[in-house]
C-alpha cells in the first residue's frame, strides 16, 4: 500500500510539472495561435541558465530563480514575440510549425555551444531534507512543485478571467484589429503572453531538471507530455489541461512502478518512456473534428516547375557530374555522396508533402527507417526487396495519417511527431527491429541480376533514383493531381465545395511521401551495409525539415541542394567541434528567416538569370555601352523564350 502511495506522489509531482509546462503552452497558443514546438527547448535552455547562475556562478538559489523566472525568461519571450512570432498566428500552420522547429533546433544549438556536454547536476530544492508522513516520504522538491503548480493555476485563472489585460488576451485571438479599435494593444498583449509562457516553460524546466537530468534532448522532448496534456484541453481549456497533466503524470508513474509485474513487459523496454507519446496519440485520435476555416486563402507564389525536357537535361547533367566526381574518390567520400543522395530523396518526399501538399511531417526519417528495416529484414537485395520496403513504408505512412483524418495541419504534424517518438523508443528498439543499438545488415542492391557492388557505382545508382523520383514528383505537380494538391493547400474550404475528397487525398499523399522516404532508407541501408537506429532518429527529421525549408521545399533543386547540406552538417560539426552548436543555431535562424517563403534559397537561384537580365545587364550596358550584346544573341534567343513561357504555363 505504501508503495502505491509513493508511486502516486511521484505521479502527482510529475503531473504538476507537466501542468506548469502545458499551461504555458496553452497560454501562448490561445492568445497568439502559435503552437510553440520549442516550448520544451525554452525550458531546457533556462534550466541551463539557472544551473549557470546557481551552481557555476554560485548565486543564491532565490536570486537565480528571480533572475531566470522574472527577468531572463520573460525578456526572451518578448524577444521571440517581437522578432519571430509576429504575424505568425495568421500564417499557415506549416509556417508557424517550421519557425518554432527552427527555434527548437536553434536553442539546442545555443545550449550545446554555451554549455558543452559534460556531467552537470542540478541539486533539488532543500536537498536531503525529507518530509515523512507515516511511512510515506516526500521530498521538498515534490512539495514545492505541486504547490507551485497550484499557484500557477490560480494566477492564470485570475489573470485570464478577472483582469482587463487577460480578457484582452482572449479577445486578441478572435480579432486583433477590433481590439485595436477598442483601444487595446494586441502587440503588448501577445508579448505578455509570450513572456508568461516562456517563464512557465523555464519554471517547468528548472523543476524537472534535477529529476530528469540536465540533458539537451531529454528536457526538450519532455514537452511531448505537455503537448499531450494541452491537447486534452484542446489547447484552450486550462482546467482540462491540468486534468490531462495529472492523469498523465500519475499514469506514467504507475506504469513505471508496476510494469515489471506484468508478464512479457521486458519485450517492450521503452514503454515507460513513451507513455506521454501514446497518450498524445490517443488524444489526437479522439479529438473532435476541427472545423474548416472558411474564407482562408493561403495562396503563395510557387517556384517554377520545369518542363519535362528541362528536368531530364538537368537530371542527366547531375548523374554525369556524380559519375565524374566519384571516379577515384576514396570510399569514405563516396559514402558521403550516397548519403547526400539519400537525404535528397527524403527531401523529395517533403517536397511532395509539404511543398505541394502544405502538410508538415516531423517523422520523415522514421519512414526512411521503416524502409531500411524492411529492406534489411526482407533480405531480397533486388528491385523486389526495394518495392516491398517502399510499400511497407507507404502503408505505415497511411497508418499514421488515417487516425487523424479528421484533423487539421497542426494535429497531423503532432501525430507524426508522436509517431516518430514511438518508433524511436519502442519499435526500433524492439527485438524485431534494431533491438538496443544493434546494427542490422543489408546487402547492396542488384538490378535485374546485376549486382551494384562498388561504392562509387552505388552512389551513381542512388543519384539516378533521385533523378527518377524527382521527375515523377514534377510530373505529379504538372498534372491534374498537382493542381488538386495546390488547390487543397491554398483553400481547403473552396476545394471541399468543389467535391474533392480531401481526407483520402491526404492519406494518399502521406503514403506516397512515406514511400519515397522508405525508398531512400532502403537504398541507404544497402549503401551502408549496416544500419543502426541512430541513423533514423527523430531529431534528424527536424533538421531535415529545416534544411528543406531553407533551401526551398517547393522545388526539386531545393531538395538536391538541401540533401547535400544535410549530409555536410554532421561532417562540418565533427570537423569543427568548437562551433558544432553554432551550426544548429545557424540552421535554426535560417529556417526562421526563410519560413515565410517556402520557396527558399533555391527559388532565389531561379531568379538570378532574370535578375541579371533585368537589372545587372542593363546597368552594365549603361556604363559600358560597348558590352551591349547583339539583339539576336543571348537572352532574346527565341528558343529560350519559348521555354520560359512553357514553364510559366506549367507553374500556373
Amino acid at each position: 500500500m505504501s508503495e502505491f502511495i509513493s508511486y502516486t506522489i511521484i505521479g502527482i509531482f510529475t503531473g504538476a510539472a507537466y501542468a506548469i509546462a502545458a499551461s504555458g503552452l496553452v497560454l501562448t497558443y490561445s492568445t497568439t495561435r502559435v503552437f510553440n514546438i520549442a516550448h520544451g527547448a525554452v525550458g531546457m535552455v533556462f534550466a541551463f541558465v539557472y544551473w549557470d547562475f546557481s551552481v557555476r556562478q554560485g548565486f543564491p538559489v532565490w536570486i537565480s530563480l528571480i533572475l531566470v523566472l522574472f527577468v531572463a525568461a520573460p525578456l526572451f519571450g518578448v524577444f521571440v514575440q517581437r522578432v519571430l512570432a509576429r504575424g505568425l498566428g495568421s500564417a499557415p500552420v506549416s509556417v508557424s510549425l517550421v519557425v518554432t522547429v527552427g527555434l527548437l533546433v536553434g536553442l539546442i544549438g545555443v545550449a550545446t555551444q554555451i554549455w558543452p556536454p559534460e556531467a552537470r547536476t542540478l541539486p533539488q530544492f532543500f536537498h536531503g531534507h525529507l518530509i515523512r508522513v507515516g511511512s510515506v516520504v516526500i521530498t521538498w522538491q515534490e512539495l514545492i512543485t505541486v504547490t507551485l503548480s497550484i499557484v500557477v493555476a490560480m494566477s492564470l485563472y485570475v489573470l485570464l478571467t478577472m483582469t482587463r489585460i487577460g480578457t484582452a488576451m482572449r479577445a486578441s485571438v478572435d480579432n486583433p484589429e477590433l481590439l485595436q479599435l477598442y483601444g487595446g494593444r494586441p502587440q503588448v498583449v501577445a508579448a505578455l503572453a509570450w513572456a508568461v509562457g516562456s517563464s512557465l516553460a523555464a519554471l517547468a524546466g528548472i523543476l524537472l531538471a534535477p529529476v530528469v537530468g540536465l540533458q539537451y534532448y531529454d528536457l526538450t522532448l519532455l514537452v511531448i507530455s505537455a503537448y499531450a496534456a494541452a491537447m486534452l484541453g484542446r489547447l484552450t481549456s486550462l482546467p482540462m489541461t491540468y486534468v490531462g497533466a495529472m492523469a498523465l503524470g500519475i499514469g506514467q508513474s504507475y506504469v513505471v512502478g508496476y510494469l515489471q509485474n506484468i508478464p512479457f513487459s521486458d519485450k517492450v523496454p521503452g514503454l515507460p518512456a513513451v507513455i506521454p507519446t501514446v497518450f498524445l496519440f490517443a488524444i489526437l485520435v479522439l479529438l473532435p473534428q476541427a472545423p474548416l476555416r472558411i474564407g482562408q486563402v493561403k495562396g503563395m507564389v510557387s517556384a517554377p516547375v520545369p518542363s519535362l525536357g528541362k528536368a531530364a537535361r538537368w537530371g542527366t547533367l547531375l548523374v554525369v557530374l556524380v559519375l565524374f566526381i566519384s571516379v577515384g574518390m576514396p570510399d569514405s567520400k563516396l559514402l558521403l555522396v550516397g548519403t547526400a543522395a539519400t537525404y535528397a530523396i527524403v527531401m523529395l518526399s517533403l517536397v511532395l508533402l509539404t511543398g505541394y501538399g502544405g502538410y508538415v511531417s516531423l517523422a520523415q526519417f522514421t519512414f526512411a527507417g521503416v524502409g531500411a528495416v524492411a529492406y534489411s529484414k526482407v533480405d531480397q537485395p533486388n528491385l523486389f526487396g526495394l518495392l516491398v520496403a517502399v510499400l511497407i513504408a507507404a502503408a505505415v505512412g497511411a497508418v499514421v495519417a488515417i487516425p487523424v483524418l479528421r484533423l487539421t495541419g497542426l494535429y497531423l504534424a503532432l501525430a507524426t511527431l508522436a509517431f516518430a517518438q514511438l518508433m524511436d523508443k519502442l519499435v526500433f528498439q524492439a527485438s524485431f527491429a534494431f533491438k538496443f543499438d544493434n546494427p542490422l545488415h543489408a546487402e547492396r542492391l542488384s538490378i535485374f541480376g546485376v549486382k551494384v557492388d562498388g561504392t562509387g557505382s552505388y552512389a551513381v545508382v542512388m543519384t539516378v533514383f533521385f533523378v527518377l523520383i524527382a521527375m515523377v514528383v514534377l510530373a505529379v505537380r504538372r498534372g491534374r493531381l498537382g493542381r488538386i494538391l495546390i488547390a487543397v493547400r491554398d483553400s481547403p474550404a473552396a476545394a471541399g465545395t468543389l467535391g474533392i475528397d480531401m481526407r483520402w487525398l491526404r492519406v494518399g499523399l502521406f503514403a506516397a511521401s512515406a514511400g519515397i522516404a522508405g525508398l531512400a532508407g532502403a537504398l541507404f541501408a544497402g549503401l551502408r551495409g549496416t544500419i543502426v537506429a541512430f541513423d533514423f532518429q527523430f531529431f534528424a527529421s527536424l533538421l531535415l525539415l529545416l534544411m528543406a525549408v531553407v533551401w526551398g521545399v517547393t522545388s526539386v533543386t531545393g531538395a538536391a541542394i538541401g540533401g547535400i547540406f544535410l549530409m555536410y552538417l554532421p561532417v562540418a560539426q565533427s570537423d569543427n567541434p568548437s562551433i558544432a552548436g553554432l551550426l544548429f543555431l545557424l540552421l535554426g535562424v535560417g529556417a526562421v528567416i526563410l519560413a515565410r517563403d517556402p520557396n527558399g534559397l533555391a527559388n532565389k537561384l531561379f531568379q538570378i538569370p532574370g535578375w541579371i537580365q533585368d537589372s545587372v545587364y542593363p546597368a552594365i550596358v549603361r556604363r559600358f555601352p560597348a558590352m551591349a550584346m547583339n539583339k539576336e544573341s543571348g537572352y532574346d534567343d527565341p528558343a529560350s523564350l519559348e521555354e520560359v513561357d512553357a514553364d510559366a504555363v506549367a507553374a500556373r
Partner: protein
Amino acid sequence: MSVPILEVVDLHAAYGRIEVLRGVDLTVPRGAVVALLGPNGAGKSTLLKVISGQMEQTSGDIHLSGVHVSGAKPDDLARVGLTTVPEGRSVFPNLTVEENLLLMSYAGVSADKVYDTAYSYFPRLYERAFQLAGTLSGGEQQMLAMARALSSDPALLLLDELSMGLAPLIVDELYDTVVQIADSGVSILVVEQFARTALEVADYAAVMTGGRIVATGEPDEINEIMADVILGGAA
C-alpha cells in the same frame, strides 16, 4: 466658426496598385451628424479605415480637432476619443457580454461606468451579461457594439453600415440610439448604403462614388439627387 472635429483633405489611399480613394475632402463640424452615402465599392469603408488608423493613406491629411493625425495607430486614436464601430458584428464572440464591456474601458472610461451606461440604455444586455456575445442575436450584438459608442464618451464616432443584415425595425431602434448619442453632443460620421434612415438623423450628408465625394449638402437635397448619383453615375 469653430475648428471642425474631423477634416479630411485630398486623401488618397490604395490597396497595392489599385487606388481606392482619389482625393477625398470631407468635413464633420463639431457636434454634427454627417451621413456618408454611396454605392458598393465607392470607398466609404476604406475612408473609415484610414481615418481610424487601420490603413495608411498614400497622400493627403487628416485633422482631428485641428490636430494632424496622419500615421497614428488605431489604439492610440481610440484612447484619445475616436470610437469606430466597424461594419459587421463588432463584438468578441468568445467573450461574455460583460467581458466585452470590460474591454470598452480601454477608451478611458472606468469599467463600472461602462457597465452602468450600457445596462441602463440596453436592459437586455444586463439580462445576458454572462452569455457569450457570439450567442446573442444580430440585433443584440449590434446593441453591444453601440454600447461602446454610448459609454466611451467619444469626441467623434464613426459608424460603418449599422444596418447591415438587420431587420428594418431593429435598424430604426439603432438609429434612435444614434440620435440619443448625437443629442449628448457627440459628432458622428455615419456610413450607409441604405440612405433613408441615415438621412433622417443627419445634419449634413455627402455622397461618395468612385473614390471621391461627388455631392454634399442638406439631407433633403441629397435625398433628391441620390437616385441620380447611384443609378446615373454622376461621377
